[in-house]
């Protein structure tokens, strides 16, 4: 079924990893015993039916949720676990900056211009000198094709443009890994494309990415590994080609059937 099972040894050499991670909200168990190790330059696409726990897993990796059991490691060090000790919090604070996230609903700050959105964290968190942060922001805007929107407020941008700014904002912190939470789900088809192109270019540059998505074309063509989740567990994982052409489990087969038309 899978190319490699995450063993504790594997999670320790990984860039970021979930180790025996479970998460419950009240009585509802959303994730049960997830082991997932992400290595540098991988583009891991997490797919599965809605409610399967993909987003919650991503949010655990982003340190937005605390696991109920198990832990999240970054470069071998625990950065999140049920008992958030001082050492864990400290590790999360210093290493957490290397985790970037792009949200389904962009979450740009509406009271700041595009440029201000991008330089805010580098200037305040990394203490980058303002002039340098601005120069870097400008080159990032060029990269996502929005140089002319530098001084515009987010409300004046289309959804696709807002999401590209959000990607530039995440990149400005020079993350080691970038998490995408259904980054194109809220967009019209023609706007999806411009965002997917930017994501594809990033993957081509060797950015480590974890992508929760419903875009099967992207997963197949850009992903280096597919993780298929259902009911809070990883049901199947493997290389994109093998997964899409010869899925091993019934659940994956059933899931993929809905995209045949």
């Amino acid at each position, binding site marked *: 079924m899978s190319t490699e099972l995450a063993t504790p040894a594997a999670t320790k050499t990984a860039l970021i990893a979930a180790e025996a991670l479970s998460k419950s909200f009240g009585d509802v168990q959303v994730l049960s015993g997830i082991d997932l190790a992400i290595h540098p330059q991988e583009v891991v696409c997490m797919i599965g039916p809605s409610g399967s726990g993909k987003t919650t897993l991503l949010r655990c990796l982003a340190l937005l949720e605390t696991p109920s059991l198990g832990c999240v490691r970054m470069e071998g060090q625990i950065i999140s676990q049920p008992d958030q000790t001082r050492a864990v919090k400290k590790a999360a604070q210093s290493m957490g900056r290397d985790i970037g996230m792009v949200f389904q609903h962009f979450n740009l700050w509406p009271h700041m211009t595009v440029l201000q959105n991008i330089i805010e964290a580098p200037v*305040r968190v990394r203490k980058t000198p303002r002039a340098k942060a601005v120069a870097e922001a400008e080159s990032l805007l060029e990269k996502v094709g929005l140089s002319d929107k530098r001084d515009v407020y987010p409300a004046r941008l289309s959804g696709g443009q807002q999401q590209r700014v959000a990607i530039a904002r995440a990149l400005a912190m020079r993350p080691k890994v970038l998490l995408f939470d259904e980054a194109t789900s809220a967009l019209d088809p023609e706007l999806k494309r411009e965002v997917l192109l930017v994501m594809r270019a990033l993957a081509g540059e060797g950015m480590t990415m974890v992508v929760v998505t419903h875009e099967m074309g992207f997963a197949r063509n850009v992903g280096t590994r597919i993780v298929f989740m259902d009911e809070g567990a990883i049901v199947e994982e493997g290389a994109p080609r093998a997964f899409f052409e010869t899925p091993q489990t019934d659940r994956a087969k059933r899931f993929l059937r809905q995209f045949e038309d």
Partner: protein
Amino acid sequence: MGGYRFRWDVIPANLEFLLSGLQQTLYISSITLVLAMIGGMIIALLDMSRFLPFRMIGVAWGELIRNTPILVQLLWIYYVLPMALGININAWTALVIGLSVYSSAFIAEAYRAGIQAVPVGHREAARVLGMSSTQTLFRIVLPQAVRMTLPPLAANFVQLIKFSSLGAVISVGEITRRGMELSASIFRPLEVFTFIAIVYFVICWPLAMAIRAWERRLARR
């Protein structure tokens, strides 16, 4: 019937007296607004505290203030509080305290609504980017919340202008009290109170209209 002879000339003849009352009205409303903004901040912080006893105090205080009449609160502060504490509180101070306390409960709600109107996602984005909770509060949440809070604050100011007329009951010399005094001495209630109603309206109505326009502009963003 119908033989009433209007004597509008009593208004210009006593204008200075009436306007000194208006000055007091505006003065009291302004001071009270500032005090209530500070008090409202304290109540809002208590309400949103992570510490349960603080939260209970905040909530209980707000409920108590919002569910008793302002006039009763004023009478209580003017008559009961000095007895209870064994101190002297003059009418003016009692009015300012009473209105501030009353208004602060509503302003606390406005602050809270403003902060809660900021989407959780905006805070999460800041957190993932490594911003501290203090940075997130001052750079992301408050700048957005303040904008949402300004129209309700202005609306509260209009309320205060009107509620300060209650000072007349405990003989604070604001414009309504001045009107009562004037009407009692020249027996011209119709002219005097009509004039006073017009003065309130001329001040409050444009403010209320401006606030409505302001809120519409915010809603469009």
